[in-house]
């Protein structure tokens, strides 16, 4: 196991940023950490990289505990912090050499790693330029080169493509995919397509908690498969007193219905959306139920839930 996170909790003063999360990252996996801004992604990464300690809980990286063997953990991690901070007044090679030396590299090994990183990250053309003169795409490459200069087992990348233009995003994603073949990668993002493009597995985090965890195929099956049926019912007033208490349970008790949303009322018309398990077509059952209850079915549409909707559902607190 490359990374094992156990019951991690972090308070900033009294504010709970990360709330009792646990997960594992397998060696060689590319894990996407998906969630809206402020969900706790960055905090979790700062703890894994030993920038700050957790309030409670434990993290192990390659078998080393972050509290007890902090230096071993740091040697095994390459880290690209949020916003990709860089020393703008240094030139690219100077900066990479500085990072390498702080990781204890020297002499022949230092030189060969520098050369390799310059080649792999495609920054040969700008290696003598000041970082401040580089475009955002090149800066991101320098940030990645810095993170990998000591050939770490684990890469932690916090929003590696934020602020880039679409072409640069594709380039950086390809680079991460290419690097990810030999390494364990954890990358955070708030963009869903990013995960689809680069990751093997996704953890959706919201409000400091894990909302979903699985491989991309699993999530797609689970969520793509989920279907939404929108209903509009005409119910003469007097037949029911309260839409929520009278109608809601009748749908909820159907076998494949996972959740029911009430969409409001216009005169006699009541709107509902039912989320059902994948592959179950319950339109017929709904029709029979409405007839037996004496309601009039005005409209019924069925739609597969998109990943975006799932993400939205998982990450908005009602």
């Amino acid at each position, binding site marked *: 196991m490359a990374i094992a996170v156990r019951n991690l909790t972090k308070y900033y003063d009294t504010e709970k940023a990360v709330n009792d999360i646990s997960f594992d990252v397998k060696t060689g996996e590319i894990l996407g950490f998906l969630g809206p801004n402020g969900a706790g992604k960055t905090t979790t990464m*700062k703890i894994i*990289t*030993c*920038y*700050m*300690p957790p309030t409670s809980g434990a993290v192990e990286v390659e078998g080393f505990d972050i509290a007890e063997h902090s*230096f071993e953990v*740091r*040697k095994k*991690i390459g*880290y690209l*912090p*949020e*916003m990709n*901070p*860089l*020393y*703008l*007044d*240094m030139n690219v090679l*100077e900066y990479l050499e*500085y*990072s390498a*030396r*702080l*990781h*204890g590299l020297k002499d022949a090994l230092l030189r060969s790693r520098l050369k390799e990183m310059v080649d792999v990250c495609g920054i040969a053309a700008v290696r003598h330029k000041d970082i401040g003169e580089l475009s955002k795409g090149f800066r991101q490459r320098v940030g990645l080169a*810095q993170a990998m200069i000591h050939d770490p087992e684990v890469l932690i990348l916090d929003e590696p493509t934020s602020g880039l233009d679409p072409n640069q995003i594709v380039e950086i994603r390809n680079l991460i995919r290419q690097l990810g073949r030999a390494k364990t990668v954890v990358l955070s993002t708030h963009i869903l397509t990013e995960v689809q493009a680069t990751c093997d597995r996704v953890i959706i985090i919201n409000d400091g908690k894990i909302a979903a965890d699985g491989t991309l195929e699993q999530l797609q099956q689970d969520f793509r498969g989920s279907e939404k049926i929108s209903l509009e019912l005409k119910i003469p007033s007097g037949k029911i007193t309260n839409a929520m208490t009278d109608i809601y349970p009748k749908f909820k008790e159907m076998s494949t219905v996972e959740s029911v949303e009430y969409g409001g009322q216009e005169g006699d018309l009541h709107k509902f959306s039912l989320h059902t398990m994948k592959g179950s077509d319950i339109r017929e059952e709904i029709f029979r139920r409405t007839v037996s209850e004496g309601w009039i079915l005005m409209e019924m549409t069925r739609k597969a839930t998109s990943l975006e909707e799932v993400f939205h559902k998982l990450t908005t607190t009602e």
Partner: protein
Amino acid sequence: MNKENFMKVFPNFSNTSTIFRKELRSYFNSAVAYVVIVVFLAIIGWMYTSSMFLINVASLRLMFEWIPLVFLFVVPAITMRLLAEEKKAGTIELLATKPIHDWEIVIGKFCAAWALIALALLPTLIYYVIIVFLGDIDNGPVVGGYIGLLLMAGVYIAVGLLASSLTENQIVAFIIGLLFMFALFLIDKILIFIPDFMTSVVEYLGIDFHFSNIARGVIDTRDIVYFLSVLGFSLYLSVVSLERRKW
């Protein structure tokens, strides 16, 4: 004892020296180093030489009286960015997640600023050479004066670095640093307002009191202890302040 073991017995300063070299280079990459050196020389040169011939005594005493005043403004200018800039830009996160200790960061940066001040003092030796030609000079106060200046600069840099660790705004770091240094510089100037029994304590706290002792050419352990303890304590507080993120 082979080389490996030898390295283990003695503390390893390779990280500190990496940071030291990076910081010193960045002083020279930006114009900071040149501005400091030129401003330093210009002010000292003008203030000193304009009065040297009037007094007509072969000594560097006047120069040693002026330089501490110049330090008050130059030192906070070179220490203000040391940690504040890293915090502002977020690069402190890169540095603090490397396999290095926080104290190595602080010591490396401290030494770089100290080296810059030493480099700025170097050209003032010209005045010494001039005076040697002009008359008989007592070398004791000159040696003492330079040692005192270096120690004083060390203390100022340490409190300036502490100021820089407290904020991510360089201007604020400059002002806090200046206040710290002024406090150390002025505290023994208020002796007349202090009850008699406390005067020796307050006097001991003043940096100028110890500096003038050493600048007379008398190197006393009490003065050295003062400089080193204020310096060490400030650096310690800087490390603590850097570790505040962990609280």
